[in-house]
């Protein structure tokens, strides 16, 4: 029942994700630099960095346990799985039934738990601080994300990501106000989840403000490489998910290669625009104090719930 | 209804009224010796009323009852109590928790209640002495009131015994006496009870140096 083309499409999707994710990170970095009137690093800068890190020795703290060493792989694995089931290019993904949208949230959750635990493993003050903050962001972002998905799932009468995307792509062009709410909430959650301004700043190393960076302070060498890669995969996954859910046009359906081939440039284009906008957001916003972050995410959660309510009230049985 | 019966009924009512009067007198009495004497008179009146009932109805066992009453209530128990009072050198004054006039007023209220309660029964009664049931009830209640208001052990016991008098009046007047076995049993119980009480008084004296029951308020929960 798994078609060859599906299989190829699946492998292709994963490979593309692995390849494209660091580029996306690089692109966002470039855009940010441009916005901020800095000289931009090369687009492929993340690749160079990964290569460099893989070459380096792993320097482990004395207190690091086996969990610390396995966490990067687990996180990486989770992100690969997430990318594999998000219909970035095509909705014909054999792996898609393995996890629907709820399970997708679960995958992100699993990765988050592991990285937080790893952060606490060495037992430095910053590690635990980072782990705690990550979980703080997580427990606020996760329900918001779930609510976004709920709204969409109610439109599509399904929680399967591919089905949602197909439904949304095929619908009559109706203005769904709920989608607007959901979209905004999703954007806010994505910013938080990917350690972006205004919740976190991937570029900072000022200890008291950082979240993601605080967690991975102790990582080095290949572990750090995997984590960085996983982080860019996560950004990619969220971007693709957002694009697929809210701008589902151009995603290939069925088992035709032609559609797939057409989908790639569409995706790249959409990602480029998305990355550009992201950089814009990051530039025009200031980072929030850590205790403002719950408010930010709380707003996202409320917006998502509002979206759900709007969906239920206004759009009734649509 | 023949004249003799009505005459004896009048006599019985007279004695009953006397008993009630004595009950009031006991309620009002401040001296312990006088109290015991009043109790003895009450026993005598009871005996006489029983005798009248016996004569007028011809119930032989009522003679026995009358004799028993005379012996026990009018002679033996007062004698025991007298001896106790002397042996224990009880203070002769009787103290009351509430003052006597108030007690009397409450007593009158009780009599009304008793009459009221007994009224429907008296209506039913076919005996010659139907009115006395109400009086018996009143006597019981007055004795009860006396037990409540007295602070010394001996007057309390006298109240208790007076209550028995009231009961006995009820038994004879309303029903021509209980079966003999029962009456004997009751008499025995009263006697034994009185003796035990007598023993008790000595023990209480020994422990509390007084027969004032206000000393006996240590067992409590609040």
């Amino acid at each position, binding site marked *: 029942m798994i078609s060859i083309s599906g299989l190829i499409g699946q492998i292709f999707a994963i490979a593309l994700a692995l390849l494209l994710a660091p580029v996306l990170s690089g692109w966002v970095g470039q855009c940010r630099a441009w916005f901020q009137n800095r000289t931009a690093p090369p687009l492929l800068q993340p690749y160079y960095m990964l290569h460099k890190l893989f070459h380096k020795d792993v320097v482990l703290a004395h207190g690091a346990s086996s969990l610390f060493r396995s966490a990067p792989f687990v996180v990486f694995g989770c992100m690969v799985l997430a990318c594999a089931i998000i219909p970035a290019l095509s909705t014909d993904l054999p792996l898609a039934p393995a996890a629907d949208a709820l399970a997708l949230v679960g995958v992100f959750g699993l990765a988050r738990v592991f990285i937080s635990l790893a952060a606490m493993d060495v037992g430095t003050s910053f590690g635990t601080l980072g782990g705690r903050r990550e979980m703080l962001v997580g427990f606020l972002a996760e329900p918001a994300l779930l609510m976004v998905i709920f709204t969409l799932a109610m439109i599509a009468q399904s929680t399967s990501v591919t089905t949602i995307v197909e439904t949304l792509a095929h619908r009559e062009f109706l203005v769904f106000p709920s989608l607007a709410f959901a979209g905004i909430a999703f954007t806010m959650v994505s910013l938080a989840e990917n350690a972006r301004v205004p919740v976190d700043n991937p570029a900072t190393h000022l200890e008291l403000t950082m979240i993601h960076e605080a967690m991975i302070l102790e990582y080095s060498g290949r572990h750090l490489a995997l984590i960085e890669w996983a982080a860019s995969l996560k950004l990619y996954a969220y971007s693709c998910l957002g694009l697929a859910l809210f701008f589902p046009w151009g995603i290939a359906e069925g088992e035709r290669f032609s559609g797939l081939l057409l989908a790639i440039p569409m995706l790249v284009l959409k990602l480029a625009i998305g990355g550009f906008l992201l950089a814009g957001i990051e530039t025009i916003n200031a980072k929030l104090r850590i205790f403002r972050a719950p408010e930010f995410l709380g707003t996202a959660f409320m917006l998502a719930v509002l979206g759900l309510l709007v969906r239920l009230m206004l759009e009734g049985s649509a | 209804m023949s004249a003799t019966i009505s005459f004896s009924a009048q006599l019985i009512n007279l004695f009953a009224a006397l008993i009630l009067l004595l009950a009031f007198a006991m309620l009002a009495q401040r001296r312990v010796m006088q109290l015991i004497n009043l109790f003895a008179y009450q026993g005598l009146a009871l005996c006489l009323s029983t005798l009248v009932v016996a004569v007028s109805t011809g119930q032989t066992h009522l003679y026995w009852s009358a004799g028993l009453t005379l012996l026990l209530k009018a002679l033996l128990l007062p004698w025991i109590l007298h001896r106790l009072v002397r042996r224990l050198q009880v203070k002769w004054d009787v103290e009351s928790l509430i003052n006597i006039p108030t007690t009397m007023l409450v007593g009158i209220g009780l009599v009304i209640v008793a009459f009221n309660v007994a009224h429907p029964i008296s209506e039913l009664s076919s005996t010659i002495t139907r009115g006395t049931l109400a009086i018996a009830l009143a006597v019981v209640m007055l004795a009860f009131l006396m037990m409540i208001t007295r602070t010394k052990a001996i007057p309390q016991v006298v109240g208790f015994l007076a209550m028995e008098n009231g009961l006995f009046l009820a038994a004879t007047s309303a029903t021509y006496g209980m079966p003999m076995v029962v009456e004997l049993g009751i008499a025995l119980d009263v006697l034994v009870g009185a003796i035990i009480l007598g023993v*008790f008084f000595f023990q209480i004296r020994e422990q509390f140096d007084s027969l004032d029951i206000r000393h006996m308020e240590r067992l409590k929960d609040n």
Partner: protein
Amino acid sequence: MDFFVLMLAIPLVSGALLTVFGERAWAPNLNIIASLGTFLAAAGLTAEIVANGPRFAFGEQFFIDSLNVFFVALTAFVGLTTSIFSGPYMKNEAAHGRLTIPRLRLYKSMYQLFMFTMLMALTTNNLGILWVAMEAATLTTVLLVSLYRTSASLEAAWKYFILCGVGIAQALFGTILLYFAAERVLGETGNALLWTHLVEVKGELEPTVMALSFIFLLVGYGTKVGLAPLHNWLPDAHAEGPTPVSAVLSGLLLNVALYAILRCKVLADGAIHGDYAGNLMMGFGLATLLMAAFFLSRQKDVKRMFAYSSIEHMGLITFAFGMGGAVANFAGLLHMTMHSLTKSAIFFAVGHATQKTGTQLMENIRGLIRINPLIGWGLMLGTLAILGMPPFGVFASEFMILTHAMKHHPWATPVLLTALGVAFAAIFGKVQPMVFGETEAKRLPHAPAITPVFLHLGIVLMLGVYIPPYLTRWFHEAARMLG
């Protein structure tokens, strides 16, 4: 010889003997042997009644049917175990110097006489003699309560005497009224106080008189049962008397008094149409239950607390009989049995516990399970049983009472729920630290009597999960008799 005569004669004769020879070394054994004899005679009588049905004795003056034979058996049994328990208990008391030899003699003879009066009260057919026996039971127990001759025990005995004496005087007035009503129907044949005759004509008795009579009887015997607010003598007497006396007071005397009320209730019900007597009893029962529950939470003295627990259970039982009907009566009878057995077992355990620690104050009794695990467990299990924890039998009867109440008198259930909850919290909260925890108590000079405790608890446990069919039949018959 006739079992019935034996049953009454043994305690009477041995009581007399013990009055004379009570200071001899074999006297305690005589006490136990007499109790055993009484029990055997009662067992024989029970078997006879179960086999042949009700019977009379001494003309019609005594009457044994399935209702009272059940109480007779129970009384004789608890009387036996209590006498077994009181052997070592009294030895320990004497060793502690709390009792002298003459007092022990008094104890033994009064104990036997007390048994006699109770058995007489249970078996008599004559309501007058019932009254006489009840009064006699009061008198014997007054002496037992004041056995220690301390000021507290004298005070308790005095209150007991006066309150119960006055109470029972009301009962006599009730009896007179009953006689008055009966005489009008039965005439002056001398049968007018015989229950068997009364019950035949109960429908013809004058309702007004019977209602008044029942009020007096209920208040009178109810004082003895411990119905609130007539209960005030009960905690004092239980707390200050020797523990075996507390055990029989709680386990037997209260039952007998309740039995007297039940006999009268049958007549009242027959005369007064409607649930007049039942409603009164339900009201008294609930008030007692609720009041006792709240009393419980303020107790400091262990025996006093369990005395209140007895009041509480008497309230529950009275409520059950008040509800009436086959199920509730059954439950009430069952609960009486269970309560007797359990409460006396508790008092046994408590007795030894207080001897060990030398105090009745609960805050000074700690860690029983560590000084003597058997006593500790005995008290714990007994407490749990009395609180209505299954699989103990108390729960079985509480189950029936509660479900029956929910069905027929749902308004009463909040009261029941509150009372049982508060009682549970109060008793358990106090017993738990007594049983568990650390301790400094010492060993006793004489080995405690553990057997009665576990014998009782064993029976209660068994009855909780399995009631033998003959017992069931017997209960059913008794329940039916109560209407």
